[in-house]
């Protein structure tokens, strides 16, 4: 019932895959309310991450995630780079020295990661950002684990909550990021960052949950 270093590697690869497959649709979402690069940026970043991971020999999950974060920071740029970079750096810090993760570890890590995104980006819920997918995901995860639900179920709830949060960004008027320049015209479009964050939580649920069943 634990997540291994290999599982984390599989998750990162699965996230990279999901980004590659959704590169165009993420970019399309960003055309509507941003500058048409979110899919391109995340794909460039995750491609760089995959290249870095090939040479990784250590079993330290914290070190692995820190590398992912550093790589994203230095390859993505835009808003996505510092935000996803910080998210992974914080996941890594929370997992420092660990070679396996329990469900509580994962809750602590996601909590730290989301906190990092908020302290970097200053976004609050309903600002129409990735935070709108991440906070519900964190909350669903934390309460399911606290309630003693099986980890796979907790992961599924967190992915479902991320998806719901992502969809809930559609009617919102953006107050942070590039979409905020549009004012009222930003309503009616799904936030690209919330969408990539849902992919992050979904691939975690699929990889870690699948492994445990």
């Amino acid at each position, binding site marked *: 019932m634990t997540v291994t270093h290999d599982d984390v590697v599989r998750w990162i690869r699965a996230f990279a895959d999901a980004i590659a497959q959704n590169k165009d649709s993420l970019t399309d979402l960003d*055309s509507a309310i941003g500058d*048409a690069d979110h899919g*391109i940026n995340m794909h460039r970043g995750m491609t760089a991450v995959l290249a870095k991971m090939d040479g990784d020999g250590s079993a330290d999950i914290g070190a692995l995630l820190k590398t992912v974060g550093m790589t994203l920071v230095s390859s993505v740029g835009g808003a996505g780079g510092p935000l996803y970079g910080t998210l992974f750096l914080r996941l890594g810090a929370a997992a420092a020295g660990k070679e396996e993760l329990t469900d509580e570890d994962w809750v602590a890590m996601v909590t730290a990661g989301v906190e990092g995104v908020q302290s970097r980006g200053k976004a609050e819920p309903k600002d129409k950002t990735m935070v709108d997918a991440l906070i519900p995901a964190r909350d669903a995860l934390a309460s399911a684990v606290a309630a003693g639900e099986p980890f796979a179920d907790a992961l599924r709830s967190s992915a479902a909550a991320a998806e719901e949060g992502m969809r809930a960004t559609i009617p919102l008027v953006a107050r942070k990021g590039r979409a*905020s320049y549009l004012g009222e015209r930003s309503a009616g479009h799904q936030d690209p960052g919330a969408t990539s964050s849902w992919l992050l939580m979904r691939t975690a649920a699929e990889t870690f949950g699948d492994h445990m069943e």
Partner: protein
Amino acid sequence: MKKLINDPENVVREELSGIARAHGDRVEVHVDPHYIVRTDAPVQGKVALVSGGGSGHEPMHGGFVGMGMLDAACPGEVFTSPTPDQMEAATKAVDGGAGVVHIVKNYTGDVMNFEMAAELVRSEGTEVESVLVDDDVAVQDSLYTAGRRGVGATVLMEKIAGAAAEQRRPLKEVVDLCRKVNDNARSMGMALTSCTVPAAGKPTFELGDDEVEIGIGIHGEPGRQRLKLAPVHDIVEMMATPIVDDLPFKSGDQVLAFVNGMGGTPLIELYIVFNELASFLDGRGIAIGRNLIGPYITSLEMQGCSITLLKLDDELTDLWDAPVNTPGLRWGV
């Protein structure tokens, strides 16, 4: 998508290689991380200016590196702000011991990446001050939003602060001047056509054959209003009125009037825009002391223009007139 490129992935790398080959007399181009730096950097005892942002806005910023303007520029991917490691390397390369100013356009990405870079270099002992440019009156300013975008005033700030740094003014004065420029400048943009991000391969937005977008940003972000195509007289009035009312610019003021091309607009149209702007300002009793007309902060091949007004005093005028020698702006030398 029709562009003079090879592979969309390599646009920035090949552009930088072109800049390196063209302007090696004045700038050096570093690759991985990407930054463009004065050949004589670091200039000892001089405050250094570093800026950066997504590519696709040429000549900004790389074209403004050189004597009297920037010490270094960090080009990101097209319309994507550069990364902290670029800014860190550039900052270290230009630090001449008198401090470094980061000129940051107010976009979430630029702000956060420069913030991370500043944290890094400060932790290593370099004195860094960040200045935000946020002159775009098309965006409502508010504590609860990302705030106004940085647009045309960036060019003016880089020139004026660059001249002050060249005079060996201390860090605080250079930073204060940057803020003075920002406080006294307002801008607004419009587009006749969209642009196409090479990696995206299709126009960022669609405009009808008889539509214009008013209040556009420099990244192909849609504006706040889509209107029917109108005579340039009306378009200039729509742009200049909120600019003048916002500061406000008043009768008797002297301004620098900057009519900027978005990349796909020919000079003939920019002069017609300037002509309308001059008449508009006449009507308000505002005198044009200096002007700049041309494509200086662009959005790839977008057709359209932006107008920036900067309220001048003697200090700003003198610094504007001071010699500058960069690939994109040159006079007095």
